[in-house]
């Protein structure tokens, strides 16, 4: 049976697809069959038995949720007997349920209530005997509560945890009538493996698992579809609003990105938007030593305008620069770059993607001719093998992490390349636990083995789709497994197993993160990885490709928007006179020709006086940048530092002008996720105080400078202007983004469907280019004085600078940065788990608490930098990727002093 078919339900004929159950077809067609254990987001289970139906020619009353529909089937969902049975089951449920509906937090949002009403239950003939009455409510989790007495043991929470989130933190204790849901070893949710993704809370049909905020606020009065503003996965949510306040964020089931799933941050941690610390008024001060004073927007704008005019007249336009944000909208990033280029007259525009994925753009651009992820998240569900390099999606991109785990459960093969034994590494088939900073050697070594084994793609692919294979072969000829093993410390047999594994499957897909890019040779590492995909023909097909997992919500978009010193939108070179002419024409000015400075360069040129003013929008570089004391010194040396943010972040504390911005829930526009999908963000609540949306502030500032840069006060006009200037976006109309499914660029024409897989048939640069960088050691080398290599990364419960996450219940999960250390090293130095030590480098020494763990290599340390008080970045050096200036966050030579 593979053809669509017709099925009759209650006298009406409906079309069904192969594999659909009666319940699914009924639900699709608006026929309500009472049910408690079934959920559109979960596999059918068949435990509540409420959804029984009668089928002509079949005995009994099968459950519609587990019965596949079949051609010609005639189903009745309603009869005296069926309603009698359903009523009988409901009576059983109610017999063990508390009868406190009116005061129950789920009142009005309870499926048991709905079912009882449906079946017309009017009396309870059994004695009421709630099964778990004596178990206290579990209030350990900051975001939700669990009341076992209200639980109806439908197992939807367990199935969500197992099959959606794939954490497997829940189960049942006892059996039969004694069955009861437990977390972990029958412990508090907070003590269990639960990661608070909220999938169980979404599924709970009654008041057993309840969102705390929703519990106290009641049912929202407004729902607004928007995009999460944490990581680059780009999950879609429906924000539930009541009285102008955020009540809940419900993950959108119809989103191809998150498919109804969420992580703890997106689901529960957007409440920071209502935090008392929000910046509410513009503030200025003459000098850094003065107190900031509250002013009107006009005063703030004229203060900036006056100073910029002065600086420009004294030092020229290039003394001014701006760093925009991967956390803000595409529209802001475009407008910010337009402000610099069209109003100030400089290309000194950059964004914070500089310090994360700039090396990806460089590396992939070199090999494929485009810097963006080649495929889509959906491909994870289809690939035969996933090569995970230098990323920890369980923490950094949790919804994608769950998707990867689900794929593992279906049998997808997996290789993880990481110096850390991350959760994914521990569940991989092969973990390549290489020495930090040796990615280039590793991937060239794997390519060497693949060629030796003659497992490369067929010659038709190599001849017709690629170039420069011979220089590539020549370069990697010496990267024998033995040499590669010597450099990476990975055993030859592991290298051979990984290479053969990767090359032996029909489709292999690679995902990578900052563990590939934040190196002194990050760009070369991405080139080596991309060349491996090219060598095996793993590009341009479903389930293949090179797919960077973007750190912040709009890393892809901020770069796509041309908030970079050398390119306009979609990487159109500033140096190209044709491009410049096109932008100049639309902007009505002569756009500057000279490429601008990257932002690390801007900072370096403060001391010399070449750069005198910076306009920072949503970038807390005084916390997040390495060699942090030097960054603070540079920022402090500016004549005018303007910071536009939602909180008084570390950088804002150094500013002359503070511009209070709107958060994502207070803004309109678009974000582009890591798979090039352009998605709407929608204003759901008003910003606090006088705070304004980023793009409005920039446009008003431009007006104050005497050069308006928007044609109307509608954000859609910004998109439509930039799309008209960008061939790959030309087919994307803002009104379509609003009305239809989100689209993946390139979409050159209105008729073009968008691009889920790039480089089919032809690469963006024509032929795929084997890049053959020569392996070089990382800049940072361990020494006698600084014998440890420190790796920095992320934790699930926080987000980069932590300005948002530290102002939520997430701090209850993690309230400081911990220094992870191998037990052998800890023993040798007499350090125990929980001890405080000095972490030292030539730049600084800071106090940190040690966590002893086998998950790091001997001689390696790992930490996060979510907490400015700890100051991890003050220890780090300014060493960076030679091509892109992306800092070497992942390899830092440091020392440890025992206190």
């Amino acid at each position: 049976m593979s053809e669509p078919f017709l099925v009759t339900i209650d006298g009406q004929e409906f079309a069904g697809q192969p594999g659909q159950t009666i319940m699914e077809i009924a639900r699709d067609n608006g026929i309500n069959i009472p049910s408690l254990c079934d959920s559109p987001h979960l596999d059918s289970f068949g435990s509540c038995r409420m959804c029984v139906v009668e089928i002509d020619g079949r005995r009994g009353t099968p459950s519609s949720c587990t019965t596949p529909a079949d051609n010609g089937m005639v189903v009745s969902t309603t009869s005296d007997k069926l309603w009698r049975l359903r009523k009988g089951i409901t009576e059983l449920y109610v017999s063990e349920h508390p009868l406190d509906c009116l005061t129950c937090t789920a009142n009005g949002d309870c499926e048991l209530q709905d079912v009882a009403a449906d079946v017309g239950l009017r009396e309870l003939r059994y004695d009421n005997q709630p099964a778990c009455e004596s178990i206290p409510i579990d209030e350990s989790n900051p975001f939700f509560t669990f009341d076992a007495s209200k639980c109806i043991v439908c197992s939807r929470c367990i199935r969500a945890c197992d099959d959606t989130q794939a954490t497997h933190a829940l189960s049942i204790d006892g059996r039969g009538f004694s069955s009861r849901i437990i977390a972990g070893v029958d412990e508090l949710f907070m003590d269990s493996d639960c990661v608070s993704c909220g999938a169980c809370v979404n599924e709970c049909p009654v008041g057993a698992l309840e969102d705390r905020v929703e519990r106290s606020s009641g049912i929202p009065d407004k729902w607004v579809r928007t995009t999460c503003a944490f990581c680059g996965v780009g999950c879609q949510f429906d924000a539930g609003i009541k009285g102008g306040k955020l009540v809940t964020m419900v993950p959108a089931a119809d989103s191809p990105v998150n498919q109804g799933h969420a992580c703890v941050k997106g689901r529960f941690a957007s409440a920071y938007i209502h935090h008392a610390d929000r910046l509410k008024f513009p503030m200025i001060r003459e000098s850094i030593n003065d107190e900031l004073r509250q002013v009107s927007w006009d005063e703030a704008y004229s203060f900036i305008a006056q100073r910029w005019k002065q600086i420009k007249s004294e030092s020229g336009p290039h003394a001014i620069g701006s760093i925009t944000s991967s956390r803000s909208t595409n529209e802001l990033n475009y407008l910010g770059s337009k402000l610099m280029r069209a109003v100030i007259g400089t290309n000194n525009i950059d964004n914070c993607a500089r310090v994360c994925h700039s090396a990806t753009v460089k590396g992939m651009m070199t090999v494929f001719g485009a810097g963006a992820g080649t495929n889509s998240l959906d491909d994870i569900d289809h690939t035969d093998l996933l090569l995970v390099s230098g990323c920890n999606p369980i923490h950094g991109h949790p919804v994608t992490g769950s998707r990867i785990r689900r794929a593992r459960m279906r049998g997808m093969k997996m290789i993880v390349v990481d110096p850390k034994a991350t959760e994914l590494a521990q569940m991989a088939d092969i973990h390549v636990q290489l020495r930090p900073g040796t990615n280039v050697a590793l991937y060239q070594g794997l390519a060497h083995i693949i060629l030796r084994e003659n497992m490369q793609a067929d010659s038709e692919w190599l001849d017709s789709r690629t170039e420069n294979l011979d220089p590539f072969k020549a370069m990697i000829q010496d990267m024998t497994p033995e040499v590669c093993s010597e450099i990476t410390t990975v055993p030859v047999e592991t290298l051979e197993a990984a290479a053969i594994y990767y090359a032996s499957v029909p489709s292999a897909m690679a995902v990578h993160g900052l563990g590939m890019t934040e190196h002194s040779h990050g760009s070369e590492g991405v080139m080596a990885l991309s060349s491996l995909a090219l060598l095996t023909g793993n590009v341009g097909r479903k389930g293949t490709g090179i797919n960077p997992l973007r750190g912040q919500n709009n890393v892809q978009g901020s770069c796509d928007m041309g908030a970079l010193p050398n390119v306009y939108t979609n990487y159109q070179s500033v140096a190209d006179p044709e491009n410049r002419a096109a932008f100049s024409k639309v902007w009505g000015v002569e756009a500057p020709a000279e490429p601008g400075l990257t932002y690390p360069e801007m900072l370096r040129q403060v001391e010399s006086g070449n750069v005198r003013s910076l306009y920072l929008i949503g970038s807390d570089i005084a916390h997040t940048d390495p060699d942090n004391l030097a960054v603070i010194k540079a920022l402090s040396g500016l004549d005018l530092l303007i910071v536009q943010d939602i909180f008084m972040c570390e950088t804002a504390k150094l500013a002359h002008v503070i511009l209070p911005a709107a958060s994502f829930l207070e803004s309109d526009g678009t974000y582009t996720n890591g798979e090039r999908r352009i998605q709407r963000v929608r204003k759901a609540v008003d910003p606090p105080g006088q705070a304004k949306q980023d793009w409005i502030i920039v446009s008003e500032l431009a007006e104050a400078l005497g050069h308006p840069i928007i044609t109307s006060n509608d954000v859609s006009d910004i998109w439509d202007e930039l799309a008209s200037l960008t061939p790959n976006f030309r087919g994307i109309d803002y009104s379509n983004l609003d009305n239809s499914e989100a689209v993946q660029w390139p979409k050159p024409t209105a008729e073009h469907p968008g691009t889920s897989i790039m480089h089919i048939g032809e690469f963006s640069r024509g032929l795929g280019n084997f890049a053959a960088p020569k392996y070089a050691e990382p800049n940072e080398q361990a020494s006698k004085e600084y014998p440890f290599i420190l790796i920095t990364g992320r934790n699930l419960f926080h987000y980069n600078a932590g300005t948002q996450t530290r102002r939520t219940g997430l701090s209850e999960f993690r309230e400081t940065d911990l220094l992870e250390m191998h037990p052998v090293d800890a023993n040798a130095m007499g350090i125990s788990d929980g001890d405080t030590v000095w972490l030292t480098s030539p730049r600084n020494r800071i106090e940190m608490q040690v966590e002893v763990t086998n998950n790091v290599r001997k001689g390696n340390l790992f930490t996060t930098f979510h907490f400015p008080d700890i100051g991890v970045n003050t220890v780090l050096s300014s060493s960076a990727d030679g091509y892109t200036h992306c800092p070497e966050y992942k390899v830092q030579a440091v020392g440890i002093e025992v206190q």
Partner: protein
Amino acid sequence: MFSRELDSLYGVIMTEEYSGWDPGRPGHKLLDILKEEIRTKGQPSAERVREIASITGTTAAKVRGVIGYYSELKPDNSTVRVCMGESCRARGSELVAEFLAKEGDTVGTLHCAGLCTSGPAVLRDEEIVPMGCTGTGLQLFVSMDSISQKLGSEEVVQSLLQEVDDTAAITRTGSRGLFHLEPMIEVDIDGTRHAFGPVQATDVSSLVKAITNGSATEHPTALGPIDSLSEMKSQTRFALARVGIENPLNLAGQKEIGAYSGLTKARDGGAEFVLQELEAGGLRGRGGAGFPTHFKWKSAMQQGDPIKHVVANADEGDAGTFIDRMLMEGDPHSLIEGMLICAETIGATQGWVYLRSEYPQAKRILQSAIDSAREDGLFGKDFDITIALGAGSYVCGEETALLESLEGRRGEVRARPPYPTEQGLFGHPTIVNNVLTFSMAAAIMREGGSVVGNIGTERSKGTVVAQISGDVGIPTCVEIPFGGSVADLFNNHSSLDEVVAVQVGGPLGGVFAAEELENIELSFEGLTSADGLLGHGGFVCYGSNFKPRTEVLGWMRFFRDESCGKCTPCRIGTQRALELLERIGTDSEKEGDRILLADLDEVMTETSLCALGGLAMNPVRSTMKRWPASFGGESNE
């Protein structure tokens, strides 16, 4: 260059076969590890649960959930266990338990050890290793079946060893099933097997003398040639053909009397031939559901998956049934042969025997038989059989709950479809058949489908293995053609004297008054049309001390305790039914309780996910109908 001192070699290849990842399905080893852990160290701490989770590739919650589910995964300090299965209860196991407790034992209970004809079964943690000897002189045969042992066969063998000369051989066999004649000794006299029984240890000396001086046939225990006993002649033994003849672990000897001849025919004829033969033989699943076996095998055969499983359901949980145990102890090769025929027919790569832990001797003998069959090369190179032990759950005899248990999960029933033949163990096509079904399949291949198919009734072809136990004068196990009445079965092979009631087909089966049995045909359809079920062929008898109300409460308590808890009608319904039954017929009965019970009956029967909930009201209904006086209603007398 980098510093070697700081680095060592890193890189892990997880498993040679890259086994994938699914913490929800750690496999059956988790149950074994937990059983050993809890047996030796008691209830594991939270920390230990986390360690076990990490060792077995699952999570703490899943381990804890498994511990919470299985009754054997609880610390047990009992010094003795008394069987509370129906047959043993009918013979007074409660009194025995009380007595043992008074004697100072810490008494635990179990539900059926398959010793139903020798009950009440009392089990201590001891292993009775069957003794025997080889020789070329006098050839003696004594059953080592667990029931025979309970009836004293080991003591008899001990005496024999002292009495016979050292040329004599005592061969240990399975039981003929004639338990009223056990302990029974068979002696080869002039090439004919003569039976003697029941033989007590004290009879041995005189018996051996009688044999030696040629007067054996005059010994008081002499029964005559075994094959001429009316109890044997009246049977048609297909599945039981070899049980009781030869040492089951003597593979060569077993082959001589037909073992693996069915497999040879299956291999010669091919998969389609096997299906044809099974269809001709009319083989229906003997676990109770009676599903045509050739349909099941065909469905699995048609699946394209390169990995398929064959599972023998040896979780013989219905009290009053023990034929699977008898086969595994008496002719394990018939099970192995049936599984191999199935594996080759459907293209299976792995075989499993899910064996209840209450059968330690069956495990020991079956494991030896599997090992010798493997060594003999019978398995081929791509197949093997693993024994997995249950951990205390009646529902795990249901095929989908059994598969969950084999996957190392709580034994919760799965909704069907998908059927196990499409997505069974670890998602692969799987045949789950009862032990007796596999033995029957092997017998059909050996004897020929039409030979078996020509006997029995229209819809119940071949033979039924009837196990009669409980409060009955002649407990027995016989294999006879389907057909005739249930009363005939008793009259020809046992006795209905003083039998008041008979429950047919396990605890979920209907309960009948003795006098109505002559109107019930002995067949799948005969029992069904009498609102009962044939089940696994157990007939548990109750005598004059039959207490209908006590039994009904006992059944419902058992169902409540054994409900897996997945589906609502069974999870809550069994508890509510028990509460109602405790009131009905007493002063606490409330108005409407009987109507409510009838309503609950309909809900449980119509909507439960599996037979436990679906049939739980079956014995209640049939007992209340026949003995209303016990429930405060009008007397039927």
